[in-house]
């Protein structure tokens, strides 16, 4: 059964929608349109000399081997961050969902990391992993493991993945916890009476019933890893060493803000925009079908 609200006036619904539409237009559509327009231009930093260059920015970008490298880095980074933060988030949620003493305090503590600003979080990770002054870094070097993320690309990637994932674990945990608590206990109790072991109960009942939450979180985490991790990378590695941790969003920042090449940076933003649209479409079309709501 569907309930419909019918507005007799024509104007009212638009009026009610107006504030939100205005915000969307000013803060989303207008900048996006500008990025598309700028991606066809070549400008000096001050915008004094502007020329229309058609698709030249795009052809140069796609022919650039370092851009392909950034693309690969982004794929590795986003996949690893999402898997790690979702996995840990789920684990912590399951543990926090148990009936234990002081569960409230325990949960609150688990949510804390989410309130830490990305740049601050990155500084904390520097204190841990810096090869010379970091707690863990020194310890690893003491073991003779040759820890040096300033020069070792693989280690640098590992550090930014850990830092970025850690930040998101708390967020994922909150949603998983809410998801877990909305699963009716009677289902699980019935399964337990039928003799299903905890592990079986989790994989055959809890996990499928969590799938709407999981699906939502996959989308959110991928978008987070692709677009919201700039602060972590900037504070920890600045995209280096060499270009080992340069992701698409970090490169767009460097080209636009540091190198002052707005045309190239806008072209990259447009590519990113297309990628996200495609990604979201694929997810909603194919993944959503297999989700139990």
């Amino acid at each position: 059964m569907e309930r419909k609200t019918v507005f007799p006036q024509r104007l009212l619904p638009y009026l009610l929608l107006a504030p939100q539409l205005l915000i969307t237009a000013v803060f989303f559509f207008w900048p996006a349109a500008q990025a598309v327009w700028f991606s066809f231009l070549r400008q000096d930093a001050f915008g004094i000399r502007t020329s229309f260059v058609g698709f030249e920015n795009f052809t140069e970008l796609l022919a650039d081997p370092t851009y392909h490298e950034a693309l690969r880095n982004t794929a590795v980074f986003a996949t690893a961050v999402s898997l790690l933060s979702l996995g840990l988030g789920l684990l912590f949620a399951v543990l926090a969902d148990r009936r234990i003493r002081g569960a409230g305090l325990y949960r609150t503590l688990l949510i804390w990391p989410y309130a830490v600003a990305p740049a601050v979080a990155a500084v904390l990770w520097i204190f841990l992993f810096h090869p010379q002054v970091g707690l863990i870094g020194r310890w690893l070097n003491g073991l003779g493991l040759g820890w040096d993320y300033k020069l070792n690309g693989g280690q640098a990637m590992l550090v930014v993945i850990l830092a970025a994932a850690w930040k998101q674990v708390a967020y994922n945990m909150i949603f998983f916890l809410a998801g877990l608590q909305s699963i009716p206990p009677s289902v699980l109790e019935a399964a337990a009476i039928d003799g299903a072991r905890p592990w079986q109960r989790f994989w055959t009942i809890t996990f499928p019933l969590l799938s709407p939450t999981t699906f939502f979180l996959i989308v959110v985490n991928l978008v987070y890893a692709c677009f919201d991790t700039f602060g972590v990378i900037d504070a920890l590695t600045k995209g280096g060493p060499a270009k080992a941790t340069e992701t698409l969003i970090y490169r767009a920042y460097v080209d636009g803000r540091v190198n002052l090449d707005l045309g190239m940076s806008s072209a990259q933003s447009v590519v990113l925009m297309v990628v996200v649209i495609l990604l979201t479409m694929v997810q909603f079309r194919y993944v959503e079908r297999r989700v139990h709501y």
Partner: protein
Amino acid sequence: MQRRSLLAGSAALGLAAPGLARAQARTEIQLWHAMTGALGETIGEEVKRFNDSQGRTTVVPSFKGGYVDTMTGAIAAWRAGSPPHIVQVFEVGTATMMAAGPAIKPVHTLLGEAGITLDPKRYLAGVRGYYSDTQGRLISMPFNSSSAVMWLNLDAFEKAGLSTTALPKTWREVRAAAEKIKATGAAPAAVTTAWPTWVLFEQMAAIHDIPFATKANGFEGMDCELQLTQPFFQKQMDFVLGLQKDGLFKYGGRDNAAEGLFPAGEAAIGFNSSAGRARVAREAKFKWASVPLPYHDDVIASPKNGVIGGASLWPLSAKNRPVEEYRGVAEFFRFLSEPALDQWWHQQTGYVPLTLAAYEKSKAEGYYTQNAGADAAIIQLSRAEPTPNSMGFRLGGFVEIRNIIQEELEKALQGQQTGAQALENANRRGNVVLRNFERANKG
């Protein structure tokens, strides 16, 4: 608005006190800068002295973040039509600012219009050269300048059985010292550097009188090309890679990331900006010295001047900006060029003095005997008349070029490529940046 019209009204009635009338007439000048902490406070103090010294102009300083943020912010503000009157821009942004034609007002034009004469010769050679055009006229106002120097941990030197008075002058001697430090375990690492591109390549090119790029390092035109594949850079690159291979060099990261290693005692020989002096003085728990950068004595017998780092002040233009505002900027600049103020600024911040007079005065007053090594950067900047190779760099997209060199150096240090490949790649990629800059700025 209301208050102002009230004031104007009362002034018209002849009721205003003289003090009020003067306050109303003050011109406000916006100054955007990138100095944090103690340096930011020093700017505040400097501006206050200027504001108190005269009755016509009020300079309002605002901190706008790091160098990149400050420059980008000012450019965005110019594009939006409301730029600050003055913006502090780091030295690598110089070419971008110079190419900005109508957006800037060259200092010599600004001062000329205000009827102020300022002889560029009062500035140290290395300072003057970087911010002048080919005719020797000042384009931007020298403000905070530094140079790279070598810091030595004398306790570690002593432990390694090295002399603490006859300090290394050449790279050969640096290597010999590093070998002893490593052999005796006097410090966890022997050599490290902050600002790898600036210290290891830019400064070295200037000191050895080798062109970094054609067209006098870009001073004579945007159609310049990098010269990184020349034998000198190959020699320098091989030298650095050789140090690393033998466990004598510790790469500490890009830009200033490595500057903490020396004061922490992690590296016995550190290269960093002379402006890092305050931090070393505060943090180092050992005896130390700062001396000019080493050179290759088989390339040059008496090294040339090094290049500066730091930033300068750029007057920005705007549509309908009244003449008195430009005049206010010019008066502020005249105030900054006074040797007495310059001397105070130098001793307060650790930046080099900009004027020769401030340097001579500090020397006469015994400042450098009380603060040994505080003049290392000054000696390095003024020890020779600048050649076209040691005037400085005017390369478009220099920030990007620096990062490219850092990236390729990192790849070579990782062992992913040879030194020759690193230089070739850096040269090729850097030239692409130069061509893009030329393309975007022509016509």
